[in-house]
């Protein structure tokens, strides 16, 4: 009994400590993202993303791998752009920041039945590879980085 109580108290103390020292921990969990007409107003991390890293995530095969489906002149240095999705040149002129965030988090909220994966969705379909169960393709901060990068794609 005594012991259990101690553990619990420590737990509360730790939680309080984290809340104080890391305000950025107010990260939105995959299931809690609030959509309005397919758009997501709130930054998933509470902060602004890093466009430069977003560009890296965009081309990286194991991360966004966006080039697999989308052509994008800004990354012309990367070979082989796919043509499954529309070209992303000038995408920031077509969509607001909130819409771009919605598109990266879960584009199915705007394009029903699209082939484009939801990058911040847990276990969207059956038979997810075992080591990926419960995981999203991108982390919250990677999503924000990609959104910041897409915001730079103006015509």
């Amino acid at each position: 009994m005594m012991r259990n109580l101690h553990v619990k108290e420590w737990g509360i103390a730790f939680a309080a400590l984290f809340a104080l020292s890391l305000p950025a921990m107010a990260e939105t969990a995959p299931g809690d993202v609030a959509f309005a007409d397919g758009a997501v107003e709130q930054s998933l991390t509470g902060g602004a993303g890093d466009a430069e890293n977003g560009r890296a995530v965009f081309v990286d095969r194991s991360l966004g791998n966006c080039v697999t489906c989308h052509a994008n002149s800004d990354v012309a240095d990367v070979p082989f752009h796919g043509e499954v999705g529309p070209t992303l040149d000038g995408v920031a002129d077509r969509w607001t920041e909130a819409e771009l965030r919605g598109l990266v988090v879960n584009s199915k909220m705007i394009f029903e039945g699209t082939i484009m994966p939801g990058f911040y969705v847990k276990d969207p379909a059956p038979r997810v590879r075992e080591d990926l169960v419960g995981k999203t393709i991108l982390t919250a901060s990677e999503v924000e980085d990609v959104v910041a990068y897409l915001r730079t794609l103006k015509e």
Partner: protein
Amino acid sequence: MKRTMIATSAAALIAGLTTATAVFAGEEDELVIDGETLVTKAPAPEGSPFSEVISGWRFRSDETQALQMDDFDNPGMIYVDQGLDLWEAADGSEGKSCADCHGDIAGFAGLRAAMPKWSEELGTLATMEELINYSRTEHMGAEPWKWESNEMLSMTAAIGLQSRGMPVDVATDGPAETWWEKGREIYYTRFGQLDFSCANCHEDNYGNMLRADHLSQGQINGFPVYRLKWGGLGSIDRRFKGCVEDTRGVPFAVGSDEMKALELYVASRGTGLVIETPSVRQ
């Protein structure tokens, strides 16, 4: 909701334009082997989701296409030769070869075009691999071959070649019907962390580039296929496995009921095409 629909139709328009204007390297090429032209594009049969059925050969580069046009250059032919040797080789407790019972392998012309098919003896939808192993164990008293073994690939290639140029002709009725339906269901189910179905890539996007890959209709009339990437011949199941893995999903086990159902359904989507075994891919 309204905005969702507008966005969707705009995107559909973009996608439609891409598909309609997509001209790919081999689109107008003809597959001629030994002076014989093989059908690689045909009007789709009734009930098909396609308007035309197109062989995977048409989507490949000139260099890869050329390898399949000349049997001396086709690396799959080495397996065929091995298969022909195995056809004559006695094996197992009965000391018999395939040839002892079946005579000339040419007698199997048409078999590959009908695979997979319902088998009374096996009491299941049978693949070529299963028919071969049934004969090995039941008639020869020999060990079954592993699905992806050199022997099995060589034999399925050698038997498959006997049907080259013959139209795909799989039965999807009778006892095969429930298998076909199961296969169709799997084909349209999204799998894995990337949430893709077979149809997302091979029905909605054939003709489009997926990074460096030119998406085909995912037809199986050329299997087993020699893949330069594999450096060897591979079965239908190996290809399906790779495609499900690309969804970051758990593939069906080789030889499982799901694989067989999928094989029947995909084979039926190629009705109108002809057998091209052994075909060559990059």
